[in-house]
């Protein structure tokens, strides 16, 4: 006869253990881990490049020491773009996998000079669905959505937009050329996640980057105060 076994356990139990290990290590070292999630082509890598460049223009006392973990299905192009800026980076290839998982991030930490890092970005695989499901041990997730993708993304992908601490709207310079209603986009964000911080960024011209960096200042300070 079959017998009943109570489990009452998340499907992500193993993942949770790895995520906790990442969180514990980065907590001890005071490193802020930010998990960037957006569609392919939303401008995640370009946003990171612009953020890293803008960071080097800051006075030395206010400059973050950054590192990046790049997640892609294939190629090391993104990590090469980051490395070209002199920032330590690790590429994870998921070889078909549509998202990163905590054990991959945990392994990648070993390849980074964590003792000399304040801010660690993870650029997740381009996808608005699966990456939202997986805890990588990050301090928080950030949704990156671009103007040409349309104003309906928050409502179509509510799980992601509900989870994030911040929403970054990129490619704001394209607004005159596409049909995009900021009222609808931000209205839906407000309803799904009223406390999410909002940023408007044009990574090419540099608009909005200072606000984004100031947000990161606050979050890092808050983490280190704890």
């Amino acid at each position, binding site marked *: *006869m*079959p*017998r*009943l*076994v*109570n*489990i*009452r*356990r*998340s*499907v*992500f*139990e*193993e*993942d949770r253990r790895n995520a906790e290990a990442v969180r514990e290590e980065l907590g001890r070292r005071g490193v802020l881990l930010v998990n960037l999630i957006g569609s392919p082509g939303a401008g995640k890598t370009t946003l990171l490049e612009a953020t890293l460049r803008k960071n080097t223009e800051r006075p030395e006392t206010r400059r973050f020491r950054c590192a990046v973990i790049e997640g892609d299905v294939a190629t090391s192009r993104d990590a090469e773009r980051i490395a070209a800026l002199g920032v330590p980076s690790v590429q994870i290839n998921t070889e078909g*996998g*549509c*998202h990163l998982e905590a054990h991959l991030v945990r392994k990648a930490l070993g390849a980074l000079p964590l003792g000399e890092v304040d801010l660690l970005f993870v650029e997740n695989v381009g996808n608005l*669905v*699966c990456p939202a*499901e*997986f805890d990588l041990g990050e301090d928080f997730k950030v949704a990156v959505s671009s103007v040409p993708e349309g104003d309906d993304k928050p*409502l179509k992908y*509510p*799980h992601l937009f*509900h989870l994030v601490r911040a929403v970054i709207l990129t490619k704001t310079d394209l607004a005159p050329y596409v049909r995009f209603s900021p009222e609808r986009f931000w209205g*839906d964000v*407000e*309803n*799904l*996640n*009223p*406390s999410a911080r909002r940023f408007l960024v044009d990574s090419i011209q540099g608009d909005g980057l200072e606000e984004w960096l100031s947000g990161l200042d606050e979050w890092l300070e808050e983490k280190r105060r704890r």
Partner: protein
Amino acid sequence: MHELSLVEALCKELLQQGQEQGWARVTRIALRVGEMRQVVPDVLLFCFDVASKGTILEGAVLDIVPVPLLWTCRECGNVWPGDAACALCPNCGAVRTELQEGAELEIDFVEVEDFGESPEEATKECRSCQDW
């Protein structure tokens, strides 16, 4: 197709438990799935069929138990069932609200068969220990 990612995590978790606890076969899985997860049940079932092939999970009935959304307001304590599109408290309009239920992806229970129960498993068991 995030259903396949979810199913992979589900199978990994159960296969590990099965190995630790020596299950011969899993015949039923009760899975609580929160509405916020946007899981399409048919797709989940299809992925499960594919992913479970050749394992102790093959042929198990996957019961998907939907969990509707339930919000709580951290300002006024109001609790309300809602849809995914609005997290504002309908009572006081507060933004400090929490999703109390609806994000689950939890294995509630499983039905398992232990070794030695079905005739073919019994034979297998005895052959492996050679104590017939």
